[in-house]
C-alpha cells in the first residue's frame, strides 16, 4: 500500500501499576522516511516500540504497523521488520556470528554479502562468545543482524548507546543507505545530534505523550532564535518588545532569545542602537529539547 503510513499510533495508553508509560501517544511514520523518536529516559519510547512489536498490549488506543495489527499479526509483520533493542543481551554460549545468523533466520533470512560487509565496516569479531562482548560490541551484533536483513522497516531503540564516535559515524552512513534503498526507519533516541543528522521528521515525547512533531524545519519555525549582539549604546525598550525572552544586558553586550514573530521589531531596534557585531543562530535541537522539558517540568 504505497502512501499509507508504516506506523500509525493514535491515542495509545499503557499503565504499569500507577505509572502512565503511555498517556495518549500519537505517532505517524511515513513509508520511506527516517523518523526520529526523541525523548528523555523514561518518556515511553521503549514501551511504544514494545507495543508495536506485539510484546505488550496497550490498555487503549490504536496501533497499526505495516498495515497490520501489532498483536494479532505479529508473526507475519515480524518477517517484514527488524528490531534492535536498547539493551542488547546475547546468549553466553553462542558466538556473535551465530547470534547474527540465528536472529536473521528467525525473521526469514539474511543477505550474506551485506552481513560480511557490515562485519567489516563495524569492525566486529564474530567468533567471540556472547558473554565476552562489551556493550558496544553487543550493540553491533544486533545492528548487523538487523541491517543485513531484507526488511521494509527498521525499529531501532537507542541503537548507538555504547558505540564509539567512529562507529556512530558508520551507523549513520548505514541508516542513510537504508533510506536510499527505500526502507523506513523509526529511530528512538535521546541523542539529539544523531536525530538531527539522520531524520526527515521528528516526534518529541515526554511522559508518554507527544509534545512536538514535524520536520526539523517546522520545529525550528516554531522556535526562537538566539541573538548575541554588541551595540553602540544600551538599547531602550528591548525588554518591552513582544517575543523577547531571557534578556541579559551587560553594558553594550546583549543576549536574548526571540520568537520568529518578534524578529522584525528586534532587528529594527538593534539597528537604531548601532550594531557593532551580531550573531543569530537557529536553535539546535538540543536547545529545543531542553526548553520543552524545562518549560514543561517547571
Amino acid at each position, binding site marked *: 500500500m504505497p502512501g499509507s503510513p508504516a506506523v500509525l499510533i493514535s491515542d495509545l495508553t499503557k499503565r504499569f501499576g500507577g505509572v502512565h508509560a503511555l498517556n495518549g501517544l500519537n505517532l505517524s511514520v511515513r513509508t520511506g522516511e527516517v523518523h526520529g523518536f526523541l525523548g528523555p529516559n523514561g518518556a515511553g519510547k521503549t514501551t511504544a516500540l*514494545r507495543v508495536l*512489536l*506485539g*510484546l*505488550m*498490549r496497550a490498555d487503549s488506543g490504536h496501533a497499526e504497523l505495516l498495515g497490520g495489527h501489532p498483536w494479532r499479526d*505479529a*508473526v*507475519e509483520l*515480524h*518477517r517484514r521488520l527488524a*528490531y534492535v*533493542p536498547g*539493551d*542488547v*543481551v*546475547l*546468549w*553466553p*554460549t*553462542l*558466538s*556473535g*556470528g*551465530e547470534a*547474527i*545468523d*540465528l*536472529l536473521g*533466520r*528467525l*525473521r*526469514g533470512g539474511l543477505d550474506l554479502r551485506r552481513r560480511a560487509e557490515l562485519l567489516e565496516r563495524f569492525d566486529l569479531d*564474530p*567468533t*567471540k*562468545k556472547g*558473554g*565476552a562482548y562489551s556493550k558496544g560490541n553487543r550493540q553491533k551484533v*544486533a545492528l548487523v543482524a538487523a541491517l543485513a536483513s531484507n526488511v521494509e522497516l527498521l525499529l531501532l531503540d537507542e541503537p548507538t548507546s555504547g558505540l564509539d564516535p567512529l562507529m556512530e559515524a558508520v551507523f549513520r552512513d548505514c541508516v542513510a543507505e537504508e533510506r536510499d534503498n527505500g526502507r523506513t526507519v523509526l529511530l528512538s533516541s535521546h541523542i539529539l545530534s544523531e536525530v538531527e543528522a539522520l531524520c526527515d521528521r521528528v516526534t518529541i515525547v515526554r511522559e508518554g505523550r507527544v509534545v512536538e512533531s514535524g520536520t526539523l524545519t517546522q520545529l525550528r519555525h516554531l522556535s526562537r532564535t538566539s541573538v548575541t549582539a554588541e551595540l553602540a549604546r544600551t538599547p531602550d525598550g528591548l525588554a518591552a518588545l513582544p517575543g523577547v525572552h531571557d534578556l541579559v544586558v551587560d553594558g553594550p553586550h546583549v543576549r536574548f532569545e526571540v520568537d520568529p514573530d518578534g524578529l522584525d521589531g528586534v532587528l529594527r531596534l538593534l539597528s537604531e542602537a548601532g550594531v557593532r557585531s551580531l550573531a543569530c543562530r537557529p536553535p539546535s535541537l538540543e536547545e529545543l529539547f531542553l526548553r520543552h522539558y524545562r518549560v514543561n517540568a517547571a
Partner: protein
Amino acid sequence: MSALTGTGTLVRLALRRDRLRLPIWVVVIPGLVTATASAIVELYPTMGERLALGLAIGANPALRALTGPIFDPSSAGGLTAWRVTGVAAVLTSLLSVLFVTRHTRAEEETGRAELIGAGTVGRHALPAAAVLVAGAANLAVALLSALGLATRGLPVSGALAFGLSVAGTGWVFTGVAALTAQLTETARAANAIALAALGLAFLLRAAGDAADGDTLSWLSPLGWAQRVRAFADERWTVFALFAVAAAALSAVAHLLAGRRDVGTGLLSSRRGPATAAPRLSGPTALAWRLHRGVLLGWVIAFAVVGAVFGALALSVGDIVDDNPQLAALMAGFGGAGAVVDAFLATVMSLLGMVAAGYAVQAALRPRAEEVAARAEPVLAAAVSRWRWPAGHLVWALGGATTVLAVAGLAAGLAHGIRVGDPAGQALRITGAALAQAPAVWVMAGVAVLLFGFVPRLTSLAWAVLGAFVLLGQLGRLLGIDERIQDLSPFAHLPRVPGGEATFGPLAWLVVVAAALVLAGLAGFRRRDLTGG
C-alpha cells in the same frame, strides 16, 4: 583499604535481598526436624516398639542406602537422627549452594558486582559476605533444630550434635559453592557443579551405607553428618572433618578470587564459530543449544547413579538371605526377590523426584530468558508466542524423560548382568523408571502454568516441588491428612518394579500435565513480556 573492606555493608545487603527467602529456609528445616521428632516420640513411646522398628530398619540395606545407618534404635533421639539427618543435611546444603551462588557468581554475571566493586569495597568482600551469611544461616538452622529437639524432651547434647552435624554439612557445601563460583562464568554452571558435588556426596554415602563396610561413606560430608552419631554416644571428633573441609574449600576459593578479573571464570569460554550451522535456525534449535550442556550433565549423572544402584540391588537381596530372621520376615512379601524389587522401586521413585528438579529448571528456562531480556529479540522476529516456549518445553519434558530412561537402562543392565538377564532386566527397569515420568511432567506443568500467569512468582514451582518431595518422605510419619498427601503427583505412581503397574493414575497424571502445560502456554500468549 583491605581486601575485605565493605564486607559488613554487603552482609546487610544480602540480608536485605533475602529477607524473606532466608528466614523461610531457616525456619522450615528445623520445623521438619522437630515435627519428625514429635512423631517418633508419639508413635514409638516404648523401647520395645522402638527396637522392633530399629531392627527392621537396620537390617534392610535398601533403607540404609536411602536414609543411612541407624546407630541407636533404642532411643527416640536415635530414631529421629536416623530418619531426618539426611533430609536436613541435604536441604541445608541446597540452601548454602543456592545462596552463595546467588550472591557471588550471579552478581558478577548480571554486572551488579561491577557496580559494587567500583565502590569502596575490597576484592574479597563479595564472596566473604556470602560465605559469612550462609555460615550464619547454617548455624541458625543448627541452633533452632537443637532447640526444637530439646523441647521434644530429647537430650541436649545429642540435640546440639544433631544440629551442628547438619550445619557442618552446610558449611562444607558453602565452601563448595564459594569455589565453583570462582570456576565458572555463569551462575547456572556454578550451581550445576556444586549440586553435582552434592549428588556425588549422596551417592557415595548411599553406596557406602548399603554395603557391609562403610569406607565410602567416610568420603562424603553427608556420611560424616550421620557418623557424628547424634543421640548415640556422640563423636565430637568428626566435626574436625567438617571444619577442615570447609576451611580448605573456602581458602582455595579465596586464592582463586585473588587471581582473576571481575566477571571472568577460571573455566573461561573459548571462541565460537563465525557463522551458525544450518540447523541453528529456529526457536527449538536455539532452545537445544541452551539446554544441551545441562541435559548432558544430567544424562551422565543419571547413568552413573542408575548403574551404581543397579549393581547394588542384588547384594541387598543377598544380605536378606544371610539373615534368617529377616528372610523369614520378608518371605511373606515374596522373599529376597521382593527386597531387590522394593530397593529398585525406592531408587526409581527417588530418581523421579530428582528428575522433576531437571524438568522444573528446564521449564522455567523461558522465564530466565525473558528476565535476561533474551526473549525479546526472538519474539520480535517471526516466532509466535506459543512456538518459543514450546521449543523449550520439548527439551524440558523430553529431557526429563530421557534422563529417567537412561537411569532405568543403566540400572537394568547393571542388575541384569549380575543375574544373567541384561536384556530382560534392562527392559523391566527402564519401564519402571519411565513410569515416574508422568509425575515429572506434572511438575513441569506447574512451572509452565506459573510462567503463563504469574511470571514473577515462578520460583513457587520449586516450593511446590519441595513440598511434594517432603510429603512423600515424611508425610506418613508426620500423620499428614491423606487428601493433602494425594495432592502430590508422586503419591499416585505405582511402586515398580515389583508392585502392580496401574495405568489409570498414570493416564490421569498425563491429562493433568497436558492441561497445566496448555493453560500455561495460553496464559503466556495473552500476557505482556515483563522483566524481573
